[in-house]
């Protein structure tokens, strides 16, 4: 007997069996409509799309890129150096002290009248007759590198510690997490100050003449303290992520196929918690910049004559009523950097954090 839908007998009156006559076949056009409306998207692409729609995050990204390009490119062609007095005709110009932005000193005026071209002091000069713009540029360089480098230290240590602790669990985890608990409860700012005081004395002589002596023992101690204390937050975060990911079926499958722990952590677990980690690093950078400026304020900052934004702003406090611009420029740059990283971090979180995704 051949199958004919139209002639299927009804079982009885109250049957729920569908009356096929009431339906008609879909045309090709209608079928085409049910094809995928949009192309499939990956986690990363979807996040980037969301990020691009967030105007604040995009503006911050542009600001940061512009800042980074400025501090890389400007020192290449800028005629003044951050540590030397302005010179006119090969002689030190002692009249170029505390100039306001875009003004020239007496000697420079003379040189201009004689037909020389002199590059304007965009931000003026400081009390030691140095061009202030290049000092702010170098300050931003130092502050940003401190932020990036400190966050990198935190990332590496936290990632290693957290993944080991989270993956192995059990007794290893318990011991490792008690250590984290104790370090976590130490007041970090106080410890930074204390270790800076000590290392300043201990390292001061040992570092003389080496490359790092330019940034000074205080910055080394800042990095050491970040390496010793600040990684615990990151370790906790990574551990939590790993604990929630490692019970998934695909990890079990990988393990069943004989993958080694290192491979499982690298290939299956870390890529899945990368988004949360990147967000946390983005938010760690402003905190490191804050710590650096705080240390500069209490006199434990970078080694003179190397400037940082914090030490520039702090040095400007003295003559603030007469030369407010010296305070304003580094202050604005610090706020711009920190604000941009905060907004970008928030934007990244909105775009990539799986918990906030709908």
């Amino acid at each position: 007997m051949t199958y004919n839908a139209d002639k299927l007998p009804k079982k009885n009156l109250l049957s729920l069996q569908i009356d096929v006559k009431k339906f008609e076949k879909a045309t090709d056009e209608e079928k085409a409509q049910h094809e995928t409306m949009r192309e499939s998207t990956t986690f990363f692409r979807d996040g980037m799309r969301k990020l691009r729609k967030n105007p604040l995050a995009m503006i911050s990204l542009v600001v940061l890129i512009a800042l980074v390009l400025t501090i890389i490119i400007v020192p290449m062609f800028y005629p003044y150096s951050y540590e030397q007095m302005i010179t006119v005709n090969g002689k030190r110009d002692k009249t170029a002290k505390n100039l306001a932005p875009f003004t020239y000193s007496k000697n420079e005026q003379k040189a201009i009248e004689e037909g020389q071209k002199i590059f304007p002091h965009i931000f003026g000069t400081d009390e030691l007759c140095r061009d202030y713009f290049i000092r702010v540029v170098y300050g931003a360089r130092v502050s940003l590198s401190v932020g990036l480098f400190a966050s990198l230290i935190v990332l590496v240590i936290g990632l290693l510690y957290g993944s080991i602790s989270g993956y192995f669990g059990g007794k290893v985890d318990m011991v490792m997490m008690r250590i984290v608990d104790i370090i976590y409860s130490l007041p970090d700012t106080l410890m930074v100050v204390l270790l800076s005081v000590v290392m300043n004395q201990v390292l001061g002589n040992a570092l003389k003449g080496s490359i790092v002596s330019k940034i000074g023992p205080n910055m080394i101690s800042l990095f050491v303290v970040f390496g010793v204390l600040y990684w615990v937050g990151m370790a906790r975060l990574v551990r939590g992520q790993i604990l929630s990911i490692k019970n998934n079926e695909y990890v079990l499958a990988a393990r069943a196929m004989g993958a080694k722990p290192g491979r499982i952590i690298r290939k299956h677990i870390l890529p899945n918690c990368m988004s949360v980690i990147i967000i946390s690093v983005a938010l760690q950078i402003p905190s490191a910049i804050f710590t650096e400026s705080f240390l500069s304020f209490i006199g434990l900052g970078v080694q003179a004559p190397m400037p940082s934004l914090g030490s520039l702003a702090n040095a400007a406090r003295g003559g603030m009523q007469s030369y407010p611009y010296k305070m304003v420029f580094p202050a604005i740059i610090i706020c711009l950097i920190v604000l941009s990283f905060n907004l970008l971090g928030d934007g990244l979180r909105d775009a990539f954090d799986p918990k906030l995704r709908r």
Partner: protein
Amino acid sequence: MLKYTIKRVLLAVVTVFIISAITFFAMNAIPGGPFAKEKAPDPAVQAALEARFNLDKPVHQQFIIYLKNLLHGDFGISLKTGREISQIIGEKFAVSAKVGGIAAACAVVLGLILGSVAALCRNRWPDRLIIFLTTLFVSVPSFILATILLLVFALTLKWVGVFDANNPNYVLPVISLMLYPMSYITRLTKSSMLDVLGQDYIRTARAKGVRDSLVIFKHALRNALIPVITYVGPMVAYILTGSMVVETVFTIGGLGTEFVRSINNQDYPLIMATTIFLAVLMVIATLLSDLVYKLVDPKITFD
């Protein structure tokens, strides 16, 4: 609860011990003792001085003696002024505690109000304005904020007087200390308030016809408060370290100024004592806020 309390108290004690150990041994690692002078004094005088301050004993014994003295409230004497450090701390901390206390209270009250307003006006202009301002405030280092406030409001506009000891004007120092924790509390309150407002029991209360104000204050705010308690510990830590900056900028003679001065003077016993004192305060604040949090939140179970 008892088990949790004991665990937390033990952790706090261990932390305090470790802090004192780090502080003591770090300070000991600095080359040159307090009595090392360019011109060597009479060896007998040197020996007598060292015996007087137990410097002739091995380091670990010195540490034990130091701990014993700490427990008796004896922090030693300041190298710069020769005064008892416990006296200095007691005197200066009274000033700091006043400024810090007002700042903490203002931060909590304003933060709760702003956070609730932001949550209730979600995605309208008050919310956007509040979130914009709080994001701005957390991006300014406190010493820059304090200096700018001082320059604009006290020196240029002359709206408020400059701080002086006889006629203290706490407005600007309190504002500069308060803005960061206030912004943090605002964001915390907003997110926890939004969380609570989406709960079923709020809908039930509204459906019963309970007045809006009652729903907000009795049902929503009370529950939204709980996460804020956890921030009290970090806030105390922030205000104590922030006071170093703010007090120096406004020349308030508090513990913060004293600490910064002791660092610049290299007055090691004072640095050591102040570090330990502040650290103990921070640890206690964190301990209390954690314990209160567990006590208040009925949803948390103790294992």
